[in-house]
Every structure is written in C-alpha cells, then in structure tokens.
C-alpha cells in the first residue's frame, strides 16, 4: 500500500512479436518442407504492416500461426503479449482474421445471419450483436442486401462480407491474408478506405499482398518475405519511389550489339534476355527510358512493351542496395 507508485511508464505491449519462428510441414516420402525460416518481426500497436511476397513465400503460414490454427515448429509468437501456443484463448479474443477469397461463408444463410453467427462465436451478447451486425453491414455497403442469401452475392460482395466478419469483435489486431485478390477496382478502393479508417481507429493491421502499390499506399511499414525468409522491413516510401522511378521495357528482336549499347545507357540497371528473342530492360523513369526507346526505334524495332517493375524486381533492387550499403 505504501509502496511508491512506479514513475516510469511501462512500454506499451507490442501488437505482434515474433522471435526465431520456424515452421516446417511434413511431406510423405520427402524431407520436411520448410515454410518459415528464423522469422523475426515486431509490430507496435496501431501500425498497418504489409507483408509482400510471391506465391509460396510463407505468408499464409505466418497468418495461420498468428491466428492460432497452426502451431510453430519452434520460436515464440505473441499477439498483444499472449503466446499463440500457450494462451491461444486470449490471443483469439483480441484477434480478427480474414483469409482471402470468397470462401468461408455459409452460402444458404443471409449476410445478416452469417454475421450474427460469427458475432456469437466472438461472444457478443444478443443486443450487442444486433447493433454491431447492422453497423457492419452498413459500413461495408451491404445494408441493402442484408437479408438475401449469400449464394446470390458477387465475389466482391462476399469479400466485403468477409471483412465485416473479421471486424465483428472490433479486434485490436486484424490479420488480412490477401484481402484484395480478385477484387474489382471499385471494391479495392473501398477496401483501402476501410483500412485507413481502421488505422485511424487505432487497430493494428497485418496484411499480406503481392500488390506493391497497394502496400505502399496503405502501410506504415512493409516487409518482404521470400522462400520462408523475412528479408527486410522498409518504409513504404522506399518502395513507392522504386515503383514510380523504374520502368520495365520488353523488346522483341534485339541483336547482341544493340543489347550491349543499351546496357551502357546511364540509368539502365539491367538488360536480360528473358526468353529467346525477348529482351527485358530495366531503366530509370525519364531520360534513361527515352534513350532506350530511341535506340531500339532507330534500329527499326517496333515490338516494344512498357510496364512497371514487378514485385521480384523491386525486391532484388532493394536487396542489391542493402548489399552495397553493407559493403561500404
């Protein structure tokens, strides 16, 4: 009673804390498949964090472990300070999960019945449930169709219902595994607005995606995962800059000489033959791109495709830069 009250405030608990996480899957007749290798990641409360990585990188595996439906092979994973293996009940209470796609709903039931069911799975009382379900249907724009069976819904509507489902308990931490896969542009824009609202309300969001502009636009930080390894965590500006400063030019029918000349143009970062007869040139937006185009057009080539760099390219770019920083 007379003990002096602590003057130093305890640091707030981390929303997500992953240390030395490994996960492997048993495969019959083969050595175990390693899906996550020594993953370390800390996400403070209130952060929107994107996990970028190609198919098979281990994103879903990580989301499953966080949502307690898969156990770590080794390492420690905590959500709001609770261990996912030992205190899974506590973890579940502060977590909302949305696995991508349009599966996972009860198709014969209406949107409202679906949400009502999940609200009681998250232990909301009857009155609270009614209020929350109505509010969520409104929020994801399904109020008009709330009492129709889900089987008549479009993919986008089902995805929105899924999001509402994940929000039913107003969880402190929300895990979204590829939430926008297959969404039409309008739905994707609404989704972005929703994530911004969630952020403003103080929710922590961990979202996986392979859409870089989306990740760059929405997140406080972005991590890259490839082959089960979490490579690096960056601020989205860095990625946004690469995406908007780099351009990819695919040219058909370049000769070796032409390729060598292109490689010497300042601002060209790579020239590779991706398949016989097809050359891919990575160049800085602006002058370098113009010089490359001039070069090939003067050589009489017209089969040219321009595009933004892919996830892998940005990733390699970042790794390359990091490598140089370390070497200095």
């Amino acid at each position, binding site marked *: 009673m007379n003990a002096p009250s602590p003057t130093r405030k305890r640091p707030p608990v981390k929303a997500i804390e992953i240390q030395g996480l490994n996960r492997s*899957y048993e495969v019959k007749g083969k050595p175990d498949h390693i899906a996550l290798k020594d993953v370390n990641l800390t996400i403070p409360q209130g952060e929107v964090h994107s996990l970028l990585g190609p198919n098979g990188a281990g994103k879903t595996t990580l989301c499953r472990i966080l949502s307690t439906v898969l156990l770590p092979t080794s390492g420690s994973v905590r959500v709001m300070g609770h261990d996912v293996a030992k205190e899974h009940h506590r973890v579940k*209470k502060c977590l909302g999960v949305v696995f991508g796609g349009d599966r996972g709903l009860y198709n014969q039931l209406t949107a409202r019945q679906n949400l009502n069911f999940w609200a*009681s*799975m998250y*232990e909301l009382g009857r009155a609270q449930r009614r209020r929350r379900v109505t509010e969520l249907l409104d929020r994801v724009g399904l109020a008009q169709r709330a009492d129709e069976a889900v089987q008549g819904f479009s993919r986008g509507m089902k995805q929105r219902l899924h999001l509402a489902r994940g929000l039913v308990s107003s969880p402190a931490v929300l895990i979204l595994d590829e939430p926008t896969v297959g969404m039409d542009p309008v739905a994707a824009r609404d989704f972005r607005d929703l994530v911004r609202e969630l952020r403003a309300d103080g929710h922590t969001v961990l979202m996986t995606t392979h859409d870089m502009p989306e990740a760059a636009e929405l997140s406080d930080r972005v991590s890259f995962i490839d082959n089960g390894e979490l490579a690096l965590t960056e601020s989205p500006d860095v990625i946004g800059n690469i995406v908007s400063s780099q351009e990819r030019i695919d040219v058909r029918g370049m000769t070796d000489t032409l390729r060598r000349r292109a490689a010497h143009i300042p601002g060209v970062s790579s020239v590779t033959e991706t398949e016989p007869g097809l050359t891919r040139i990575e160049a800085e937006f602006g002058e370098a791109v113009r010089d490359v185009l001039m070069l090939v057009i003067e050589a009489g080539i017209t089969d040219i495709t321009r595009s933004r760099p892919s996830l892998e390219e940005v990733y390699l770019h970042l790794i390359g830069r990091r490598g140089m920083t370390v070497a200095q």
Partner: protein
Amino acid sequence: MTEHLTKRRLTLLTGFWTGFEFQIVTMRGQAETYFALITAPFFALLYMSIMEYSGRSDLNTHAVIAPMLMTLWTAALSFSGEMISANRENGRLELLLASPTSFPMLVFGRLCACMLLGLPSFAMSYVSAGLAFGYWMPIHHPGVFAGALLLTALATAAAATALSSAFVLTLGARIVQNTLSFPVYLLGGVIVPVSLFPGWLEGISRLVFLSWSADLLRASASPEPVENAGLHFAMLLLLGAASLAFGLLSIVWFLHRARQLGALSKE
C-alpha cells in the same frame, strides 16, 4: 483462478447455444432437413405390416418407435460428418477455430438441435400407423416416455459428436460412418427388440445406448408398470455421458494434432 474457470464455462455454454441456434436457422432453410423426415412414415408402415401379418401385434409399439430412432441416428450420422468436413472444404474450419468459442461444444450444440427432428418424425410415424392400421399407440407412462426421449436425443448427439472427431484428420471417414448405420440399428434393438437376440448378442447390444432407450420407450407405451426404470435411465445417462466426454476430448486432441500437422485446411 475462479474467474478464469467461470469464463471457461461461459465459453463452453456460448459454444453450445451458438451451435444450437445456428443449426435451427440452417435446418429451416434446407431441403435435406425435410428429406430426413420422409422415410419415417414409410418405415412405420413397413414395420406395421410385418407385425400385423406375422401376428405379432404385441410389437406394434416397436413399429411406431423404431422409425423415430432411425431418423435420430441417421440425422446424427449425416450431420456429424458435415459439421467438420464441409467446414474444412469451405475454408471455414480455420475461421471457426480462430474464434474464442469452444468448437467441440459448437458441434455438440448443433447435433442437439438436429435431434429436434425426432419430434416431427415421431408424429408422422404415429399418425401413419393410426391412419393406415388403426393403431393409435397409447402412452401409459408419459413421464418415462418424455424422459427417455430427451435422454435418447442427448445421447445420440453425444455419440455423433464422438464420431465427428474422426473427420478432423481422416478425409475418408464417411465410409466408416455409412457402415455404422445398420449395425447400430440392429444392436440398438431398433429393428428387432434385443430380448429376441441370442444371449451373447444381447450382451453386446447392451453397450449400445439405443438398446436401453428402445426398451424404455416401448415400456412406456404398455399399461404394466415399467420394469427396472431406474437401471435403464442410469445406463442411458452413463453411456451418453461417456460418449460426450470421449467425443469432446477426442475433438480437442485431434484438433491439436491437426494444428501440429497443418491439416486444418485443404490445400
């Protein structure tokens, strides 16, 4: 500590009621529900005609009660598989397990709600025996009848909960499940009273809770006092509770194993 236990108990109850309510909502809108009921009057007519023409009208009660017990067990079997395998195929199993409510209790709650099908099923076989054969089954001991019906329904749901655990890891569990319907009807004394069995078979069938229910339900329709009612109720309760405990624990165990293996979703 006590607070934690109270919360835990609340979670179990939430699971049960959520499942119960959900199943009623689902069944109302499903054609399968009504199909499950269709067989009852036909079985009643079939059994009634066998009893009548073989001169065993003393077994008429049997003919009226058997179809209901069959409906209960068939519904329990088919829904218990659906509970887990359909949820897994649809990607819902992981979502259900990621929520704080007790999943085994959710399954038990859903199966208990399925047992409500027993009531319309009984009504239909009762009415069809009455209309077609003029046999309106008397119920001389309504208390015993109601009690036996309630415990039978709970024990059936409990047994189905235990069976459903097999679906967590084994995708081929449906075959096992299909083979389980006929032997259980037979051993449970649903088709022929177990007292007509040879002694050794009767011994085995006493391990099947339905054999105790069938006896009680039949006895409640006869004017004589119900013999050994206490023993019958106790056995029904015991076998039901044992299946429930076994069912809940084995679901928990299989789920833990599935979390280790990564077997909760179909890739």
